[in-house]
């Protein structure tokens, strides 16, 4: 798996947020995107996963040298970010089963059980997401992201809202992801930055 970003620029009206960003990342690598607030870290992450179109430049996903159409990118990636919410009227299990059915994940219930244990949310599967605290929601977002065992994991402010134990779990996830797959994080936390093999610094 390989992602190539070529000449990515993004304007919001007259304001230029991103200027000519170029990089390549392959399986077994990680990138940390850093920069001050408002510099465009989240914008770049959204462009990388297809949630936003760049004003100039393009992103290419390749598997074994074959380019993947943008409409199929979602099959390879998961994103965790503060702006991505789960369905709060539904239980955690309903949210996860919805994803599992859509992505055709085999043995979904067993995986859900194991991931919920991994993030210390065991026993809360049947509770509606609206009853979760912000930290628990963040942990649940990781279960949602990892359930499909994604080739590309994008994390925006990966440790936000988490306590010490939660941060430890996330670091473990990041360490494991970058071993064989692709990890892209957008953060300003020094500790988080250690998990990026390469750093892209965006200036405001």
């Amino acid at each position, binding site marked *: 798996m390989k992602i190539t970003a070529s000449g990515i620029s993004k304007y919001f009206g007259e304001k230029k947020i991103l200027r000519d960003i170029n990089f390549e990342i392959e399986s077994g690598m990680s990138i940390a995107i850093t920069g001050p607030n408002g510099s465009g870290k989240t914008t770049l992450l959204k462009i990388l996963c297809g949630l936003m179109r760049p004003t100039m430049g393009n992103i290419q996903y390749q598997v074994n040298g074959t380019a993947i159409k943008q409409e199929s990118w979602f099959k390879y990636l998961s994103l965790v970010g503060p702006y991505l919410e*789960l369905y709060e009227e539904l239980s955690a299990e309903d949210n996860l089963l919805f994803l599992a059915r859509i992505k055709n994940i085999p043995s979904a219930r067993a995986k859900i059980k194991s991931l919920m244990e991994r993030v210390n949310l065991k026993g809360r599967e049947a509770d509606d997401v609206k009853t979760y605290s912000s930290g628990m929601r963040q942990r649940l977002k990781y279960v949602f992201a990892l359930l499909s065992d994604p080739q590309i994991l994008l994390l925006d402010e990966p440790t936000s809202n988490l306590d010490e134990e939660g941060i430890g779990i996330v670091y473990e996830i990041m360490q494991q992801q970058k071993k064989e797959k692709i990890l892209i994080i957008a953060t300003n936390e020094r500790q988080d930055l250690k998990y990026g093999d390469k750093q892209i610094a965006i200036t405001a």
Partner: protein
Amino acid sequence: MEISRLQSLRNAWFVFQKDVQQEFKTRYSVNAILLFAIVTLFAVSFSIGTFGASKEVKSALLWIILFFSSMSGLSHIFVREEEKHTSDTLKLICAPVSIFIGKLIFNFILLLLLEIITVPLFFAVMNFSVASTSIFLSVILLGSIGLSAGATMIAAIISKASAKGALFAVLSFPILLPVLVAGISGTKVAVIETSFLKAADELQMLFAYAVVVITAGLLLFDFVWNE
């Protein structure tokens, strides 16, 4: 790993199931549509009286009630995703075509539910009757497909706007006008005629509208949803 058509349809069904689950928990759309329909029906019946209008006028009133009731709830299917910040989550797990079909099925079922309750009530309260039940049901069914398809597409367009409610009604009226006109005309035919041939123009119009809007939706939804 291109997405097969079968997989798209399967995922559309899962999106529909998820929306039904959400609706069961909140009952927002069902309550909004039914309350609007029943209040309008009784307001119309009190204002014109049981025998105060011809069958042609009553045909028009039935469609006006159905049209404006559907306007009060069908947009919620996309507005809810935007307001609860779940639209990006959905975009990241599912192809646009599955989302459009899933939401279209939900709106169609919701509209049918509205009609199952409202239409018999309309017949009873307004002392309304039709000469051909089969023509009437065909008009209602095809009209519902057209209404739900048009409304689903418009709901996706307005979901990112700030004045969603007003914009939905304003945009819907010109786009859904052909359904309204053909629906009223088809219902008038059902009131006096028993032969299907007499309603051929209206049924063809409703069928063609549904096919065109659904096809346009399948082709254009990706741009509407991702821009």
